[in-house]
């Protein structure tokens, strides 16, 4: 079995979480992961054995997101903190889906370059250096987009 095939199932959960940080809906996220997995298998000879597999996977998914989903984004969906009140009377499963949906919509209101920085660092937990590497930008650029994105989120969610 090719090394990429062997490692792919282990990275899928993180790719799934990353995709939810980038896309507008869980369905879009799952479609994106599916496409990324297929791309990784087709491009498996392009991964250098011994190099950072997770970074390669994150980069493939992010580039696919740029190619396919960005064109259809909508950033005018209203974000109402009081919608969290819907969780009252529900079981934990529905409550967590409402919360995830709320946070995904908050992220969707960020400009793309801030959103991908926030998703990679604040949600995926990549170091600033690794995130800058995935996005192929200088670390100073990564940091400024990250900070602006999180400032905007803070203001959005506490309004």
């Amino acid at each position: 079995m090719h090394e990429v095939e062997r490692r792919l199932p282990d990275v899928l959960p993180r790719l799934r979480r990353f995709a939810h940080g980038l896309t507008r809906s869980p369905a879009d996220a799952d479609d994106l992961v599916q496409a990324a997995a297929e791309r990784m298998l087709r491009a498996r000879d392009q991964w250098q054995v011994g190099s950072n597999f997770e970074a390669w996977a994150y980069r493939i998914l992010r580039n696919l997101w740029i190619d396919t989903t960005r064109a259809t984004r909508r950033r005018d969906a209203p974000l109402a903190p009081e919608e969290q009140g819907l969780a009252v009377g529900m079981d934990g499963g529905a409550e967590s889906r409402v919360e995830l949906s709320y946070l995904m919509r908050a992220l969707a209101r960020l400009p793309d370059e801030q959103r991908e920085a926030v998703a990679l660092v604040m949600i995926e937990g990549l170091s600033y250096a690794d995130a800058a590497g995935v996005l192929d930008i200088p670390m100073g650029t990564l940091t400024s987009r990250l900070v602006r994105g999180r400032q905007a989120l803070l203001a959005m969610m506490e309004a």
Partner: protein
Amino acid sequence: MADSVDEAMIIAWVDGELDDATAARVAARAAAEPALRELAERHRAMKARFAAAFDPLARSAQTVSSPTSPAPAPIISLAAVRAERAAAAAPSGTARRGWWGVGGAIAASLIVGVVIGHNSRVPVGLGDRTDALALAAPIGGALDRQLSGEAGPIRVNLSFRAQDGRLCRRFTGQHVAGVACRGPSAWQLRYAVPVTHAVTDYRMAGDDDATAQVVDAMIAGEPLDRAAEEAARRGGWR
């Protein structure tokens, strides 16, 4: 300038990106200045809030494929469910694809249940009759009578309106869990998963991912709140 601690530095401190000397300096400043301390706390809290909601997504595939759960049943038509959903939404240029096209290992690590679409073949073990998926007591009774969250041998988790207009409810029994939708004469099973020790542990971790995906594929809008459930119950779940 050398002494200033701005928001970027606070965030880097929260992320653990500062070297020890700078981190110590920021910690000392935060200890002395409530405004800085509060800003750091707000960022920490927001980061934790995102982690609580997103981290379960990154845990899902590991726990679903347990060696103690029964062998995964073949997927009958989750693709059909997703296709229904895609058709109901605005059509896009790219065809939507399900999980199941990429390698048996990936599919097997995600699937423990059986999805039953409108026109699919019924699973082996059930009779091939028009009422094969109709739910009698105790599950049907629980779905008729109980509000979500009420304790009992069968617990109903949530109620929602599906995209085909039917009222559906997610339930968890002693041996069977899943999703059923109210038809003209009975509750019709739409998705079922065996309740095993492994699956129960997984759900106690805060996320039954496969069933949540099924609900997400079926749902129109958001789940019913308490008032809407009581009204639906009064109306016989039509």
